[in-house]
Each structure stands twice: as C-alpha cells, then as structure tokens.
C-alpha cells in the first residue's frame, strides 16, 4: 500500500508537470532551482558556522530547526487546494485502514522537492556537529527525528484542518495569505540580512533566554540532542532525543485520530455566514453612485474588489508598492523633496493597468449583461467609475503619506488633479483594449497565477504592452508640463490642474466612445471571447 501511495504522489507530480504549458513548466523548474540554493545555503550555514563560531551553534540550529518545522506546518496549508495529494478525504472511498494510510502517506510525503531540500539542509548539521565516535550516531538520529517532526507534524496539522481548508472562505483567505507571505518573506529576508550584518557577539548573550525557551520545544529538543551528541554529552543527548521522538509519536497519534475522523465521519454541511442583506451599493458610496445601470455596475465592481481574492491581491500589492515608495523616501535623506508627493501619480497609472481587461472577471457570467440588453456605454462608464473611485482613493492616500514624510502638503491637490487626469486618459485606452482584446480570467481560487487556456496568451501580452506604451505616450505631455512647471515656477503647477483634468476627460471620452460603439453591435462576440467553452 505504501508503494502505491508513493507511486500516486510521483504520478501526481509528473502529471502536474505534463499538464502545464511550457511557461508554467519553466516556472516550476525555476521554483525547483530556487529550492536548491536554499537547501545548499542551509547546508553550508549548518556545516560551517558552528565550527567558526561555536557559541552561536546551538542558537543557529534551534532557529533553523524551528523555522523548518514552522515552514513545513505553514506551506502545505497554503498549497492545500492546489495539491491533490495533500487532501486525505480523496482516499476516503478506498478500503484502507489508518495504519496503512499513515505509513503510506508518511513515505509519500518524503517524495518531492521540498523533502529533498530539507534533507540536504539538515545534512549540513551532521557535517557541522558530527565527529567520529558514538556521538555521530546521535547526531544522525537527531537529524532524522527533526525530519520526521517536520513530515508528521505537517501532515497531522493538515489532516486536522482538512475540512476547514476545503471551504471556499479558507481558499479565498489562502490566496491572499500566499501573496502577503511571499512579499513578507522577501521583506524579512532583506531586513534579516541587514540585522545579521549588525549582530554583535554581545547580542548573542542577550538572546540566551530565548535559546533556553526554544530548547524545550520539540524541534529545540532535537537541536539540543544534536549539539550535545556532537560534543560528547551522550546521556543528555539521548534524553533530549527521546523527548523529540515522543513528540513525533504524539503528532503521529494526532494524525491517526484525525485521519480516522476524516475518513469515517460525514462531512458537516458547509456553513456560510449569511450577511444582513445590505443592498448592492456599498454604504459609503450609496449617495454618490447613481441608482441606475452605471451605478449598479460600479457597485458590483467594488463589491468584487472587496470579495474576490484575485482582485483583493492585486489591490493589496499595489497598495504595498505605494507603501514601499513611502518607506524608501522616509529612510533616504537625499531625495526627500516636497515635490516627491507627485510620485503618487505612479499609483494612478498602476491602478489603471488593472483595467486593461475589464470584462475578464465577468467571464461567461457576462451573459447577464447581454441578455439584459444593457447599454454598453453605461456598462463601461460604471466600470470606469469603480476604477476611478479606487484609483483616486489610493493616489490620495499615497499623496497624503508622502506629504507627511516630505512636508509637501501644497502638492497634494496638484497630485490629485494630475492623478485624476492620468487615470481618466488611461481608462480611455483601457476601454478600447478591454472590449477588443478581452480574455477570460479563471475563477480559480486554488492558484493565483492560473491562466485560462485560451491559446492567445502571447497576443494578449503584446496588446497589453502596446496599451501600456500608448498610455505612457499620452501621459508624456502632462509630464512635460509638470517638469517645466517645477523647473520654471512651481506655483504655475496650479494651472496644470484644470488642464490635466480636461485633457484626461477628453481622451477618456474618445476611448469610451470607441469602445462603446464597437461593443454595441458585438456583445455576443465579447461573450464568446469570455466563455472558455463554446456551447455545443
């Protein structure tokens, strides 16, 4: 049975790779390659640092073991929906006992890129601490127990939470978490590298209480067993190893019980939180949006922005980019000029890029619009209205934050007017591109980076790049006027405000007119472009 389950895991890995398009395969290969530096980096860290800096040895091993344990707990939770081999309920209909399943699934979990990288990294500890003698056996055993802790702990947690993880709400949350964790990890790496540079020997002493606490956690026990074994304290190492092994057994028991529960009890009915029917229009905008088709479309777009994980992620990422700009300016003294507030215009420009495929999230649900005989112009205006609300809002927040850092409060209204102009002209371009080169975005909550297999990915990429270029060219006159204003006489920028708005609105109306007039006779064609399957 164990062989079958290992074979199943291998087949899923192989087929997952085979089903992917070549860009996805390249992505997977790059992902695997990214794992190798981490594995070898971990190996070198554990192999070299303890010999060079013996006092830091225990802290380092404890930290690495704990991070590995937490990583193994967290990452499978994030990839649960996308990895069929992680969901135990898929095996519920097969006549298998938990004992066979625990053995088979444990072995299957040892197959893959992540377990391989973990073992390579842990191998460094054997090199770093192991010395010939009976202690070597304990060092190797400590590494194996730590590996078992990672595998069994990860699967136990996953199985215990598997029912919750299958819910739509959890999948939505996972998508947002994956992107935030990825960004946070990147940030933590950079901050960590800076901090490591400043770490002094005296700081290690300050960390001693933390070392003591970590040492009593299961990965800490394995780490202490490893260090004690390497230094010849065999009795202490054996006791610590026994403690860590007991933790593996306890986790294994938890896994067993969870498996029994998942395989033998009925799935509870999905509970979804019923909201108080509050109406389509978000409360703060109820009086601002018109109570007609345009308002309805704008309200729907805003509701989607708040509720659809992909849109939420795009929004969060653009907000984080803006935040990064503020932080960058706050920490660098040389370029903190008041006019840097105008850098908030990048936010308006970026916000408009999300509108280049305005019908993509509608997908086949666009039939609602077609069958209602909805006016295409009103439809586009509604979508633009929603983009305008969010774009101006983020630009305003960024402008205010930049003004707080640089003191350029007088530039805030200028930035807002220019932002509105940039957004309007960008939306004009987006209106034409959205209707002529629409493509469906998969409503797939399992994979944030999934793309619909429309076979036109390259064309879409080229068109969007062209649209971006056209928007850039159209922004140039405004940029030139602003630069001239800054160089000649800054108060003249006030005159740019109405000019920017008039220019933006003019170009928006041109784009809107072109888009709407094409769409008026071609709604079924747009629907066909947005429907992945043709009706038979």
């Amino acid at each position: 049975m164990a062989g079958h389950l290992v074979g199943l895991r291998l087949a899923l890995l192989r087929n997952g790779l085979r089903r992917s398009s070549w860009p996805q395969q390249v992505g997977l290969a790059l992902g695997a390659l990214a794992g190798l530096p981490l594995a070898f980096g971990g190996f070198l860290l554990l192999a070299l640092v303890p010999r060079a800096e013996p006092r830091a040895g225990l802290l380092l091993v404890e930290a690495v073991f704990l991070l590995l344990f937490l990583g193994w707990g967290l990452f499978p939770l994030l990839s649960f929906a996308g990895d069929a081999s992680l969901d135990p309920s898929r095996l519920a209909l097969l006549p298998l006992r938990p004992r066979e399943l625990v053995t088979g699934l444990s072995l299957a979990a040892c197959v893959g890129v992540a377990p391989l990288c973990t073992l390579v990294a842990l191998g460094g500890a054997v090199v770093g601490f192991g010395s010939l003698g009976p202690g070597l056996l304990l060092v190797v055993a400590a590494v194996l127990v730590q590996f078992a802790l990672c595998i069994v702990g990860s699967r136990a947690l996953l199985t215990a939470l598997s029912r919750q993880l299958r819910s739509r709400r959890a999948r939505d949350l996972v998508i947002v978490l994956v992107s935030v964790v990825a960004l946070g990890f990147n940030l933590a790496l950079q901050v960590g590298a800076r901090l490591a540079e400043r770490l002094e020997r005296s700081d290690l002493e300050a960390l001693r209480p933390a070392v003591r606490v970590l040492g009593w956690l299961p990965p800490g026990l394995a780490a202490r067993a490893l260090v004690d074994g390497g230094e010849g304290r065999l009795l202490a190492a054996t006791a610590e190893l026994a403690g860590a092994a007991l933790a593996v057994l306890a986790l294994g028991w938890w896994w067993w019980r969870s498996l029994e529960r998942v395989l033998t009890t009925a799935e509870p009915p999905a509970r979804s939180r019923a909201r108080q029917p509050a109406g389509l229009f978000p409360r703060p905008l109820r009086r601002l949006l018109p109570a007609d088709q345009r308002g309805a479309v704008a309200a729907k777009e805003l509701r989607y922005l708040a509720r659809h994980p992909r849109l939420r992620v795009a929004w969060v990422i653009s907000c984080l980019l803006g935040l990064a700009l503020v932080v960058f300016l706050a920490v660098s003294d040389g370029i903190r000029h008041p006019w840097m507030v105008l850098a908030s215009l990048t936010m308006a420009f970026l916000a408009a890029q999300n509108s280049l495929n305005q019908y993509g999230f509608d997908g086949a649900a666009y039939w609602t619009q077609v069958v209602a005989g909805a006016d295409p112009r009103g439809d586009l205006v509604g979508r633009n209205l929603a983009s305008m609300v969010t774009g101006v809002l983020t630009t305003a927040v960024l402008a205010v934050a930049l003004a707080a850092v640089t003191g350029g409060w007088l530039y805030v209204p200028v930035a807002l007017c220019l932002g509105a102009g940039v957004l309007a002209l960008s939306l004009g371009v987006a209106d034409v591109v959205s209707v002529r080169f629409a493509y469906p975005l998969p409503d797939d909550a399992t994979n944030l980076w999934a793309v619909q297999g429309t076979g036109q990915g390259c064309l879409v990429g080229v068109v969007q790049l062209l649209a971006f270029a056209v928007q850039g060219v159209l922004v140039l006159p405004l940029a030139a006027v602003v630069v001239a204003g800054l160089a000649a006489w800054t108060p003249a920028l006030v005159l740019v405000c109405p000019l920017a708005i008039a220019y933006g609105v003019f170009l928006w109306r041109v784009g809107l007119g072109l888009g709407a007039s094409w769409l008026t006779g071609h709604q079924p064609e747009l629907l066909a472009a947005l429907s992945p399957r043709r009706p038979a």
Partner: protein
Amino acid sequence: MRGLRKAFGSKVAVGGIDLDIPHGCFFGLVGPNGAGKTTTLGMVTGLLRPDAGLVLIDGVEVWRDPVTAKRRIGVLPEDLRLFDRLTGAELLTYNGLLRGMAAGVVEARARELLDVLGLADAAGTLVVDYSHGMRKKIALAAALLHAPRVLFLDEPFEAIDPVSARTIRGLLERYTAGGATVVFSSHVMELVERLCDRVGIMHLGRLIAEGPTDQVRAGRSLEDAFVDLVGASHAGAEELGWLGTWSA
C-alpha cells in the same frame, strides 16, 4: 424562427430550424445531449449569433433590434455562470438596475421572489456559497424580475429538490395562464409531458418532430415517442456480464 443555423468549425450544431411558438404557450424542447437545444436557445435569446436565419419574438426581430427584444424576454441558461461574489439579494438588484427598473420596484419584487422561491434566509449569502439548486432558483428569480412576456429556461428543473420543483411548476403555470410564453428544454420527459401544450424534439441539430404534445406522442408516452424518433442504442447489454459477479 426561420432557417436558424449555426456551425462551430466543421461541426453543424443547428442545421436550419423553422419553428412557430404561439403566445401563452408552454413549449418543451427535448432532445438527447448534443442535439443543439442550448445552441438554439442561445441564438433565440441573443447570446449566440446565428450563421443564418431569422428570430422574431413578439414581433421584434432579435438580431436587428436586440435591445427591444431583450426587454421582452427572461433567460435561465444551462451554464449557470453568475456574478457569484454578490449575495442573492444583491444579484437581483443588479439585474433589475441593468434592465433600467426603478430601485424601489426592484427591491419589492426581489423580496417577493426570494420568499416564493424559498431563498429569503439565503438573501444575504454570497451566491458562490449556494447549492446548485439554489443557484437555479436565484437565476430563475433574476429571469422573472422584470416580468418578461417570454421566458426561456434551459434545464430549469435539473438538481432542484421536489418541493422547489413543485413551487417552480406552480409559478410557471400561473405565469403562462396570464398570457406569457414559456419555452424550456429538459431531459425529464414526464415533466415535459405534464407541463407542455406543445413540444419539439431535436436530434443532431434538426427539429425532427413538433406540434401539440398529444399529437407528437401519438398515444404513447412522450418518452417512448422520443426514443422511437431518436433511435435508442442497445449496446452494452451483453458486454458487462461480470457486473453480476460480486467482489470479496
């Protein structure tokens, strides 16, 4: 409709259909999978552009004046892609405002429809969390919201529980009694036989029989008439002989 035709590449999905459906009629369109029912309904409702042919609804040519024609129809498609990140109540409001209805009227009608269809408790739940049957019902509510003269329903009773099915049947019967026309496709022959005044049988993209239900079934059950007209396959009776031998 006259000479309605649609091909996808070399595959002819609908190969020229002529059909008249009288006002106030309950019309059933039946046929095996892939017969072309969904494609026909798509072309009639303005969702799928035909290669050739003419569709008139209540005197309005659908492909020449789609906006006027669409004001008179309500549609429940088979592929239930909805704006499912809206709640049930929000979806109805959205549909009503798209059709240019006044907000107050939309709200009152939506509340009534949600009550009648047993969705009042789920009005504030996101449609993505609805069961398949609930999605059918909310889509039906959206199709009825503007009180259309003609209702096109593609497999409306699929995955609907018996209690809801009875409610919907009653609602549709009351609706046709008031002079409206209902055109629906279904695989459930008993239902079509019981509900429909007229029936059309499609096979391989063509209408092979059409007329008053009693006339089409000619003394047999509609299912027998359907199987005779379409031709049933008896393959498989001998091949799966092992199915009677039990595993340990």
